[in-house]
């Protein structure tokens, strides 16, 4: 399978990339690691006429400690997020989830920004950034915007990005020793999650679901129950509430809601066990 023809551009700077995107609008797509886009192009499900390869803008690959948050460059690869000492120390759920994306070869290429920009409800990292209540920094011809993860995912493979915008940075709060869990239910290694759960404990628990709707979704019913003092078991029981999970060969919506309840239950149990200072 070979992608349809396109014109290839390799800008030397972010500003140059934005200029090319602004010139070509919807006809252009950004190529980072290419591990979401190239498979779609090979299947001719995506046929951009211009491909803007930003993969060499090395100044967009970094992890910085900014105090209460970590700032992670949009082009930081999953492999680097997984192994970065700051991420492992301050946001361990993100390191762990990055290490579960695809397989080692995929993690050598795929990027955090690319994964979010693709907006696939079945991807692992969007749900983790949602659960963390992270923010996405984007740059375009109109300047810079900072978008809350909750406002970023709009519909199936659709995000708040305009055609001339690129994700430059992802900001996630440090979890400060809060318990966490990432649960991924799949039939085979390296498959996408049939359902996944990202959960972080602490005073304001965050829980988000993989593949339980047309976008990565926050488990609002679970969070609300936890805020109201519900037990983990009672909170997990409402994990499917308010969701509209997809139906495919792997699972019906009913089965997905069941999986969400089971996986949220497991995740919340792990959160309790791993919370620093836990009396268990």
């Amino acid at each position: 399978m070979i992608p349809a023809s396109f014109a290839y551009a390799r800008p030397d700077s972010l500003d140059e990339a934005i200029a090319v995107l602004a010139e070509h609008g919807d006809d252009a797509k950004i190529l980072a690691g290419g591990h979401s886009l190239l498979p779609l192009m090979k299947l001719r499900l995506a046929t951009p006429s211009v491909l803007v390869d930003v993969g060499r803008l090395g100044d967009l690959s970094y992890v910085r400690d900014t105090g209460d948050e970590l700032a992670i460059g949009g082009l930081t690869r999953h492999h680097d997020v997984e192994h970065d000492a700051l991420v492992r120390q301050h946001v361990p759920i993100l390191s762990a989830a990055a290490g579960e994306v695809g397989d080692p070869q995929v993690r050598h290429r795929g990027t955090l920004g690319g994964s979010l920009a693709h907006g696939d409800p079945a991807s692992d990292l969007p749900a983790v950034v949602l659960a963390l209540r992270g923010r996405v920094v984007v740059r375009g011809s109109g300047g810079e915007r900072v978008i809350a993860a909750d406002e970023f995912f709009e519909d199936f493979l659709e995000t708040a990005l305009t055609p001339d915008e690129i994700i430059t940075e992802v900001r996630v709060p440090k979890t400060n020793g809060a318990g966490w869990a990432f649960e991924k239910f799949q039939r085979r290694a390296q498959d996408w999650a049939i359902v996944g759960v990202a959960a972080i404990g602490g005073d304001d628990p965050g829980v988000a679901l993989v593949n339980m709707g047309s976008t990565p979704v926050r488990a609002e019913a679970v969070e609300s129950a936890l805020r109201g003092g519900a037990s983990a078991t009672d909170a997990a029981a409402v994990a499917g509430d308010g969701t509209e999970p997809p139906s495919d060969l792997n699972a019906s919506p009913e089965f997905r809601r069941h999986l969400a309840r089971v996986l949220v239950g497991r995740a919340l149990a792990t959160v309790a066990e791993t919370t620093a200072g836990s009396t268990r």
Partner: protein
Amino acid sequence: MPAPSPNVTVSITVNGSPTDHEVEARTLLVHYLREVVGLTGTNIGCDSTSCGACTVLLDGESVKSCTVLAAQADGRSVTTIEGLADGDELHPMQLAFREHHGLQCGYCTPGMVMAAVGLATERGALSSDEVRLGLEGNLCRCTGYHNIVAAVVAGSAEMAGNR
């Protein structure tokens, strides 16, 4: 930056030798290696980033060459299965695959060996559990993996020099 173009000139060091060619921008690295450079040791299996048969090393890291454009490898170094042996002397991982008979039909083997070399280069000597997890991106439909895992455990130990 040159204007966007349907053709690109790429310079890729393949197994230590420079290669320069003008290709269509949509050329995948695996096709560049097989059809332009003429190195057919890298196999195309699923062609969809799943099976790992097309695994090569890009600047020393394992990648699936069916999901990388040749243009993305421009200016970089690629190592294929043909580049592992030193003359007639096989690479330790190749020797380990022979020693442990880590193959049956052999179709997945080039990708399996390259993924194993990449893994061992990153992490040193590997346990069998680490091999099974680390090779999750490479499928073998013949062996049931047992001998492949034994080969990679031995090959990684040999590479790490602590056998």
